[in-house]
């Protein structure tokens, strides 16, 4: 980069901070990407003011090309925070990047006014563009990173929620499955269930698949694996919540469920388990008139 022409960017930022901020705010409020529903104008003004202030301080060092350097740390931190909060608020990545990129026009206008020579202007415009592009890209990256963090956390939470083993009765465990059963999940379901069987010495495990939207060969295979593993441990496994469509699909797919007890409802499965344990549910007394 040619250094003969001295940049006027820091100078412009120092001297005309207030004017640039006013122009920039006008620019942002008028832009199509502004989201008054998600962010109040006052907050936006505060963020813009802070950005401008930090940019001014960072630009003083005359090192406009290396935004990874220590001079730019406060500004980077500010953009990290901004991206994170916008990712949480539900902004899109372009809306977030536009915050930085929309700063170009007010800055360029001021640069044009303060330069007399064309070479110096061109040079400074180039520097400003390169700088703001870098900052814009940095913002986008930070935004995506925040979004990925959020998605990762949600996936983890869903994964934890996905395998609740409940004790329905002494010696009878229930495992309601909601959502698709892929191999990874089957593995987790199987491990959790078998661990609980070993821990509680429960004789029956009821897998309820009411919440499983569709069953394909893979899912059926995974279910069978779980049933077989339970049996190897010496417990009995009952599959409940088989809906009519799923029963049809299973037969069409040629899934062999021979030897597996299947019931259409959880209550039916519980009844089987009660019967095999020689338990019965009875009314306490004969029904009388007072209900």
């Amino acid at each position: 980069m040619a250094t003969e022409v001295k940049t006027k960017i820091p100078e412009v930022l120092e001297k005309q901070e207030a004017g640039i901020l006013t122009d920039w705010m006008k620019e942002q409020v008028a832009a199509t990407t502004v989201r008054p529903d998600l962010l109040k104008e006052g907050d936006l003004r505060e963020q813009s003011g802070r950005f401008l202030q930090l940019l001014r301080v960072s630009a003083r060092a005359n090192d406009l090309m290396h935004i990874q350097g220590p001079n730019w740390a406060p500004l980077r931190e500010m953009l990290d925070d901004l991206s994170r909060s916008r990712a949480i608020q539900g902004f899109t990545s372009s809306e977030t990047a536009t915050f930085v990129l929309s700063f170009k026009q007010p800055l360029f206008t001021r640069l044009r006014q303060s330069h007399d020579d064309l070479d110096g202007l061109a040079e400074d415009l180039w520097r400003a563009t390169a700088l703001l592009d870098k900052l814009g890209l940095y913002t986008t990256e930070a935004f995506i990173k925040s979004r990925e963090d959020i998605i990762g956390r949600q996936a983890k939470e869903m994964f934890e929620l996905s395998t609740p083993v409940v004790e329905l009765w002494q010696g009878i465990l229930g495992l309601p499955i909601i959502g698709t059963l892929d191999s990874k999940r089957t593995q987790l379901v199987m491990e959790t269930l078998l661990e609980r069987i070993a821990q509680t010495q429960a004789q029956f495990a009821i897998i309820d698949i009411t919440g499983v939207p569709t069953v394909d060969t893979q899912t059926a295979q995974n279910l069978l694996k779980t049933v077989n593993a339970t049996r190897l441990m010496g417990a009995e496994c009952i599959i409940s919540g088989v809906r009519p469509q799923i029963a049809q699909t299973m037969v069409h797919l040629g899934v062999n469920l021979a030897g597996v007890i299947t019931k259409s409802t959880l209550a039916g499965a519980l009844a089987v388990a009660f019967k095999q344990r020689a338990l019965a549910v009875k009314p306490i007394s004969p029904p009388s008139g007072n209900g």
Partner: protein
Amino acid sequence: MERIPILHMGEFLLVTIQVDMYDKLATALQDDVCQRIAETKARGVLIDISALDTVDSYIARVMGNIAQMSRVLDADTVLVGMRPTVAITLVEMGVALPGIRTALNAERGMALLSAARSGEDSDASGEE
């Protein structure tokens, strides 16, 4: 050569495996169990594998063989105390041990054998 002890209790034989199984030991156990069933006229065999961390496909097959051989010699076999990790591994390997009965612990296994002995049909699950 070391051998797995086989205890004789009433009508049943009790095999508790407490060392890591290797192929030769398993084959020896298979011989011994058949021998002892014939000698003692036992009506049931209980194999406790709760101490085993790993069971490979060969050992699993030997267990299946023992069950079938006992069947021929008119004795039931029940395999008790399989650990979750072992069960998962066997299922992933595609070993389902058909024809072998399982129970969660030795007590339940005994109940299962007694129930089968007391002349009921084999569907009875051996509950108290």
